[in-house]
């Protein structure tokens, strides 16, 4: 079960040249700066870039092949799409928008129930409204529901939150997080916001100037030391943690990942909850001994795995094993030299900040 694609697209001032394999489940995120070709790649997968040469197959179905004798048009691919700007049909009310794809899906192919999708996106009270009477967030939720009701085998989302303000994003993200689990539909999600990457991605593809520069599990990709310079500040690990305890006196929650115990402010956290956290390399410093007399709460014993020069000549990157979870640290090259860091050395990682995502 996977999506295999190779595409070459040349617009003169921009060229896309990619080869990728995505898992046909969970959320795959295409990430990159604007102009990196992530939206073009998504459109190639949808079959909306007829000029693209290459091949594409999804779960043993060939949608496009090299020789060009096979090209399945979008309406026969059973692909759902959600675009950045609200693209509801202006001449139809919400219910009729939702019915558009639903009616065109043979009953035997329907995988999501009408009421199930409406409840999942929380749009039951909007059915009689016209699109121009909806807020931006509501429109996007209706657009997602409309796509799901056509029972796609694959859902493509092109920066669906980019046009929304922070509050609207927070309103929609939980719905998106639930989708793959609730409906078992693979998602390919284009974004240039790290928050969405870390929160949603099961598989991450990094694009730059029309090429795939890294791909894999988000933590693996984001913790690579060879990320392109514009991502140098983003080098980080993503840990899947469990909330084990909430200290009501200090309002601190304890999060646990293999070998790692972290304490963070307990806003909206309760025991038993699963949360992803992101720890930036730039927020981790190293010491040879534990310093319980410092204000830094999260100090972890770890072992140096590798060290490497960083993008800036003043910096060095250190990969650590903290009892089963990897952590990365960005320190100065001078400190690296003074501490005489080498693989296998025991150190203490001092984590200045943990981002809950």
């Amino acid at each position, binding site marked *: 079960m996977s999506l295999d694609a190779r595409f070459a697209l040349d617009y003169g001032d921009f060229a896309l040249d990619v080869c990728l394999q995505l898992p046909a489940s969970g959320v795959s995120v295409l990430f990159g700066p604007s102009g990196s070709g992530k939206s073009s790649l998504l459109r190639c997968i949808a079959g909306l870039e007829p000029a693209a040469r290459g091949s594409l197959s999804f779960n043993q179905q060939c949608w496009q092949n090299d020789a060009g004798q096979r090209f399945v048009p979008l*309406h026969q691919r059973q692909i759902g*799409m959600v*675009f950045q700007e609200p693209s509801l049909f202006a001449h139809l009310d919400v219910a009729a928008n939702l019915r558009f794809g639903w009616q065109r899906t043979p009953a035997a192919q329907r995988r999501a129930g009408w009421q199930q999708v409406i409840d999942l996106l929380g749009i039951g009270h909007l059915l009689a409204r016209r699109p121009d009477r909806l807020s931006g967030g509501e429109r996007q939720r209706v657009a997602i529901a409309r*796509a799901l009701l056509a029972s796609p085998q694959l859902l*493509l989302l092109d920066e669906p939150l980019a046009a929304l303000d922070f509050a609207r994003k927070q309103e929609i993200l939980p719905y998106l997080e639930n989708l793959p689990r609730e409906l078992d539909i693979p998602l390919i999600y284009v974004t240039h916001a790290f928050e969405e990457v870390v929160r949603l991605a099961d598989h991450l593809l990094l694009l730059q100037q029309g090429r795939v520069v890294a791909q894999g599990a988000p933590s693996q990709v984001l913790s690579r030391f060879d990320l392109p310079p514009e991502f140098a500040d983003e080098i980080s690990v993503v840990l899947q943690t469990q909330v084990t305890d909430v200290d009501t006196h200090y309002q601190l929650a304890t999060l646990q990942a293999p070998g790692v115990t972290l304490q963070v402010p307990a806003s909206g956290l309760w025991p038993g909850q699963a949360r992803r956290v992101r720890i930036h390399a730039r927020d981790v410093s190293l010491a040879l001994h534990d310093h319980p007399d410092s204000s830094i709460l999260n100090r972890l014993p770890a072992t140096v795995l590798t060290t490497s020069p960083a993008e800036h000549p003043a910096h060095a990157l250190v990969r650590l094993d903290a009892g089963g979870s990897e952590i990365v640290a960005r320190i100065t090259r001078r400190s690296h030299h003074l501490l005489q860091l080498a693989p296998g050395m025991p150190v203490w990682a001092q984590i200045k900040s943990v981002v809950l995502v």
Partner: protein
Amino acid sequence: MAALLSPDDWSAIRLSLQLAGATTVLLLLLATPLAWWLARSRSVAAAAVGALVTLPLVLPPTVLGFYLLLALGQNGWIGQLTQALGLGLLPFTFGGLLLASMLYSLPFAVQPLQQAFAAIGPRPLEVAASLRASPLDAFFSVVLPLARPGFITAAIMSFAHTLGEFGVVLMIGGNIPGATRVLSVQIYDHVEALEYPQAHWLAGGMLLFSFVVLLALHLFKRQREQT
């Protein structure tokens, strides 16, 4: 009022309305695919056809009528075709007037439709395709409803413009009572005969009608912009 207008006047009014109605219906059928192609194609051919379609806007109606008369005539290529098909010759018939009117009013139907189609853009079609609609299905279920204001404008403009034509009619249809003598020609005849009161009734009526139609169109557009 019946006494003010002669049977000939009424016949001319009826003929004008028939001509304008038939022209509008046929023109919308023809202009829809043409405008769709012009709105979407980037080819040189589309640019050339776009210019051709616009020609009637700038050409004197007599020029258009003259060439049509030649083409439709006994030795013209359309004339030979209609004769071969057993339709006879079109000049000085209602059919000939209809053809000429369609050509003359073509830009008034194509341009609003083309603008409406262009304004819709490719996105709704992409969305429709992602919801399993074939291109033809999407055209009828998405494009046509979204282009409704364009169709209303195109219909009103084609109808009103056909009602008001004179030069082409005279060249191609002449002045045969009950067959090709439309309102504008009837007015001309009244004026030629110095029958000013009759001319006034017809001319004033047309002025009022055209004004009301255009006013309705503007109000319709303004209302749409507000919503």
